[in-house]
């Protein structure tokens, strides 16, 4: 259900749209202004220069942060939509009159697309509600959305997706997918799943780090219990707070696991959470421990350097 909800006390597992989950995911996603406003290939114009005081610069930075936050709003993660098969009438006397199907679409302007009636009269005489694919096509025909094509481009096929992943263009393909498909359609879920699996396989988490898709990826990995690679990557980049948040989310989603119980007993915080998780439920425990060791060595070196004058 859309809308913000507090962490539920009625025993239901937390959803993507819960306030606490969203807070954790936005914190992990971070906000890298250099990445959000990086130069892109476009029509070249001569550059503009502006002389600003420090206060104006701070104001401009604040404005840029606001715009970046708008751009980093996460698209929803929804369960797959149930197929529509509903026959309204079976009129056998119409059989053989027509050779084609007729699609009747209600094109009233002010109604949401999911409340639009789209029915199909088949040559055999049955009047049925249109399936989701037919609905999407008809709605795109009469109310075209910017960037969405009538037939999905061939880039979303398996073999072409592999080529795109080799070029490290995961963010682009996820943006295209968001524009082309509805969030609860099977195609959307399939493309996202393939992208997340590829990122997890090659450890390319940083590609999505300051984009609107990072939250969705973390949600998918936590639900699938595949957070080891992500944890290793975060430890190597010295993001221990983020690792703690990820494991906190993991405990929220799998409260009956051994890791959650032990953490609850010991009331662990920060790096101790990571250690408990590595001991109990991790799949790549060895690698995570190695990374933790390396991190601790570097942190002791740094503290020794900073303490000695």
């Amino acid at each position: 259900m859309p809308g913000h909800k507090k962490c539920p006390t009625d025993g239901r597992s937390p959803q993507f749209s819960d306030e606490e989950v969203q807070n954790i995911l936005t914190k992990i996603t971070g906000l890298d202004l250099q990445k959000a406003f990086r130069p892109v290939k476009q029509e070249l114009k001569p550059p503009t220069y502006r002389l600003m005081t420090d206060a104006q610069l701070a104001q401009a930075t604040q404005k840029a942060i606001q715009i970046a936050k708008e751009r980093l709003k996460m698209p929803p993660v929804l369960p797959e939509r149930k197929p529509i098969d509903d026959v309204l009438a079976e009129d056998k006397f119409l059989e053989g009159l027509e050779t084609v199907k007729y699609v009747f679409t209600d094109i009233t302007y002010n109604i949401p697309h999911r409340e639009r009636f789209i029915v199909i009269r088949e040559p055999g005489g049955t009047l049925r509600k249109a399936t989701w694919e037919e609905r999407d096509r008809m709605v795109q025909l009469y109310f075209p959305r910017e960037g969405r094509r009538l037939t999905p481009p061939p880039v979303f096929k398996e073999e072409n997706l592999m080529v795109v992943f080799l070029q490290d263009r995961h963010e682009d393909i996820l943006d295209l997918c968001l524009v082309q498909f509805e969030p609860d359609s099977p195609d959307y879920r399939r493309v996202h799943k393939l992208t997340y699996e590829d990122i997890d396989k090659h450890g390319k988490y940083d590609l999505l780090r300051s984009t609107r898709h990072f939250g969705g990826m973390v949600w998918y990995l936590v639900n699938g219990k595949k957070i080891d690679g992500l944890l290793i990557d975060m430890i190597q980049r010295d993001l221990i707070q983020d690792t703690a948040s990820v494991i906190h989310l993991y405990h929220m989603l799998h409260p009956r696991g051994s890791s959650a119980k032990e953490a609850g007993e010991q009331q662990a915080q920060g790096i101790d959470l990571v250690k408990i998780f590595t001991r109990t439920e991790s799949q790549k425990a060895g690698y995570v421990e190695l990374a933790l060791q390396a991190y601790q060595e570097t942190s002791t070196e740094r503290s020794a350097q900073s303490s000695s004058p």
Partner: protein
Amino acid sequence: MATPMQTMIRRLRVSNLILSAWQGTHQAKRPVRLLAAPVSRSFCTVPDQPAFDSISRYRERPWEYLESEEYIEKYGSQTVWADYRRNHKGGIPPQKTRKTCIRGDKISGNPCPVCRDPKIQVDYRNVKLLEQFISTHSGVIHDPTRTGVCMKQHKNLTRAIDTARDHGLLPFRVPFVEFKMEDYSNSHGAVTKTPPPSEAGQARPWYSWYQWNQPPEKEIAKVRQVYHKYLKEEEPVAGQ
């Protein structure tokens, strides 16, 4: 006494000799790739290689030609259009290049960079060739006045580049489209199973919109405001 036929034949033989001699002296000076030959003959340096085979091979796998020695010898690391110069009157070239270089079997003089080398196949799969026609800084396809290709080949290139971008072979800038949240509950009657009509004495209508629904006050106020001149003076609070 020679017959007129014999003299003609002798003259033809002599003229052929002269022609071959002239060609022999001049061919060494003209570079091979500017020979205007019909499409079916290739520019192979090896004379006994069958011409038809290489072109059909490159039709199936067009990217192989760009890796071959022949290509590197001809173009090096430049683009295929780098050393081409259009022939036109005056300082400013016409804004459109010629319509096509090859009409039927004939090739025009000074053919464009794509038409002069029949082994270059414009296909959506040979990304290296297509990239040569896209600007590295702005991602925009070069104008035909800049590259020198004929309009027909420019259209082919544009189509191939679009197909390559559709298949994900060429990177391009994906425009940022803001995502608008809709109501994804899917609970409306249009997308769910039709509930059976209630038999309980027709107390409840089948769908909620079958009975009169009072529209919201805002809509009523809007309509009143539009037709305020025509409203009858029945209610004392009629909008004016």
